[in-house]
């Protein structure tokens, strides 16, 4: 056979072909959150239909939640209404919900894997573009719109056209100070924000194989930032080891592991597009503009390009073509979001800042991806280390990844952020976002300016 992993999973989930292109695709796991689901539930109500399979949907509140005083009612009335609405909808339609006070609450893409709900070979959707994160486990996971959320609630299926396929191979060893986030920022800077549109990406190669599950999630998470429908990585021993502590969600462990072990792209399979990258060429990365493709190696200068979009972007950022970002003072450091808020990220940051103090004029906050991550960080004493460095530890949620809750970056301020999007106004109206890895963020927090973590570590 010459099938890709994607083909194998896709074929197993086609309920029916509508025409040459459209299929009814069965969905194994559906996640919902408060922002993109209310109109879908409203639709069910109007049509007088129930949720097709309640067992396969899980809800959580993440986008609107405050990260301070989470035990108290949400102050913003509209945010509160949306979160309350999710609770009401889940009650009315009998869908399981990890609400704000639930010990398993968190960012939807952090809790899925954490709870063992994300597994190889599955189809997973959520009304959220970063659903691509789950692909790290070797499944087909992609973001959908609210009409499609309603499709899934009503039929446990979506109407889809099979996307084209791309493989990105990354081989070699990463230099110290260079991590998974740098790898994906590098790839996006090379392919551009539309570089993978229409495609589903498989990441392969020794660099990916050597990455932890957390690192793989970071890579798959940002697939959408180059326009990809999703990204996936073949399951291996690491994937299975990760799941072995979450066996309760798996019906037949023996049978499942046997299937997972066989889930590989055939050597004769072909892709619509293929790219190769050398890990040794990747350096700590930073973005300078208002889309995630506008990234450079941290010691490089901003390119001297032209065009209306480019100029508008640099104008918004208050930066100039040819400018070097090293030593530029910054105002905020945000460590969080579904890209980099897992326990491994917090460990890496804590290890770096241990015994150090943040720079005086910088506000640094760390927002764990879930209550579970938060608890584990406490257990390991990471919270103490970070607090001693002057970092503020918050409760779980999307926080300053998007300007929807209380955590916003003020207009004109520079925020070094471990999140995934640097769009105009993403972290609040007028906020200026510089996307980096957790390690580079930690180094910036200590220095109060942009620094090359490779130089800092050597010193």
């Amino acid at each position, binding site marked *: 056979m010459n099938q890709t992993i994607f083909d194998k999973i896709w074929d197993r989930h086609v309920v029916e072909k509508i025409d040459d292109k459209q299929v009814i695709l069965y969905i194994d796991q559906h996640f919902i959150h408060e922002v*993109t689901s209310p109109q879908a539930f409203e639709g069910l109500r109007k049509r007088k239909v129930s949720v*097709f399979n309640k067992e396969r949907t899980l809800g959580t509140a993440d986008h609107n939640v405050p990260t301070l005083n989470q035990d108290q009612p949400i102050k913003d009335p509209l945010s509160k209404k949306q979160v309350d609405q999710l609770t009401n909808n889940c009650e009315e339609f009998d869908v399981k919900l990890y609400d704000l006070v639930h010990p398993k609450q968190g960012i939807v893409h952090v809790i899925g894997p954490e709870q063992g709900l994300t597994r190889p070979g599955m189809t997973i959707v959520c009304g959220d*573009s970063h659903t691509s994160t789950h692909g790290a486990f070797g499944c087909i996971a992609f973001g959908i719109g609210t009409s499609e959320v309603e499709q899934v609630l*009503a039929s446990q299926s979506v109407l889809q056209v099979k996307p084209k396929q791309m493989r990105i191979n990354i081989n070699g060893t990463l230099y110290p100070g260079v991590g998974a986030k740098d790898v994906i920022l590098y790839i996006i800077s090379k392919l551009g924000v*539309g570089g993978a*549109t229409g495609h589903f990406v498989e990441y392969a190669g020794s660099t990916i194989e050597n990455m932890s599950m957390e690192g793989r999630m970071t890579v798959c998470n940002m697939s959408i930032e180059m326009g990809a429908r999703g990204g996936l990585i073949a399951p291996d021993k690491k994937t299975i080891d990760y799941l072995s502590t979450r066996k309760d969600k798996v019906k037949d462990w023996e049978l499942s592991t046997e299937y997972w072990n066989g889930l590989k792209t055939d050597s004769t399979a072909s892709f619509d597009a293929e790219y190769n990258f050398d890990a040794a060429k990747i350096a700590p990365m930073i973005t300078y503009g208002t889309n995630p493709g506008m990234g450079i190696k941290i010691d490089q200068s901003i390119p001297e390009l032209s065009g209306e979009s480019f100029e508008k972007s640099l104008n918004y950022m208050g930066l100039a073509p040819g400018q070097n970002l090293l030593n530029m003072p910054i105002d905020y450091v945000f460590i969080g979001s579904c890209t980099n808020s897992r326990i491994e990220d917090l460990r890496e940051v804590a290890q770096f800042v241990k015994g150090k103090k943040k720079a005086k004029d910088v506000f640094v906050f760390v927002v764990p991806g879930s209550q579970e991550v938060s608890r584990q960080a406490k257990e390991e004493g990471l919270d103490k280390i970070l607090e001693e460095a002057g970092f503020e530890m918050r409760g779980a949620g999307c926080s300053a990844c998007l300007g929807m809750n209380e955590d916003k970056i003020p207009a004109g301020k520079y925020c070094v952020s471990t999140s995934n999007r640097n769009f105009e106004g993403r972290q609040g109206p007028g906020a200026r976002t510089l996307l980096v890895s957790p390690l580079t963020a930690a180094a910036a927090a200590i220095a109060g300016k942009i620094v090359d973590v490779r130089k800092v570590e050597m010193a």
Partner: protein
Amino acid sequence: MKKFTNISSQAVPIPMEDIDTDQIIPARFLKSTSRAGFGANLFRDWRYDQNDQPKKDFVLNNDTYSGSILVCGKNFGCGSSREHAAWALGDYGFRVVVSSFFADIFKNNALNNGLLPITVSQEQLHTIFKIIESDAAATFDVSLINQKFTCPSEQLTIDFSIDPFKKTCLLEGMDTIDFLISKRETIREFESRHLVY
């Protein structure tokens, strides 16, 4: 969903590339639990300044341009999957968006809401911008049945492609959710023999 009928209209140009859905409708306006009313905040931060005053240089605040066709630079609708972007464009009065490239999720969202995304080549897009630039009152015709985007006064005719199923949905105002509900038995049967590892 309303049936999609032929359109004859002026066009509104935004020649910017990579317009993301955070620009189309910023996150802080996503808190509504209904589908209506998003048009007021369409392109909010490009349209209004921090004191909520209209920005004179933005095309939606310029009376010269109007109509139900929006023309934008490549990679329109990238970023967040928020369907609110399609709702906001529709609510504002747009029925068609023309670009040389659409982000996947946006395209699906648009089609699911009766908003027609028309993909043209980079050169064709350039020509359309030129036409609007020289005559803001130029009229464009959209025929979905014939899959044609034309500007009669300029002898411009562009054939566009669309997925046949989506075309039927738009023309007949067919709702994909009702369609899937009608398939529930088939899906139930599939589910009964489908193994989730």
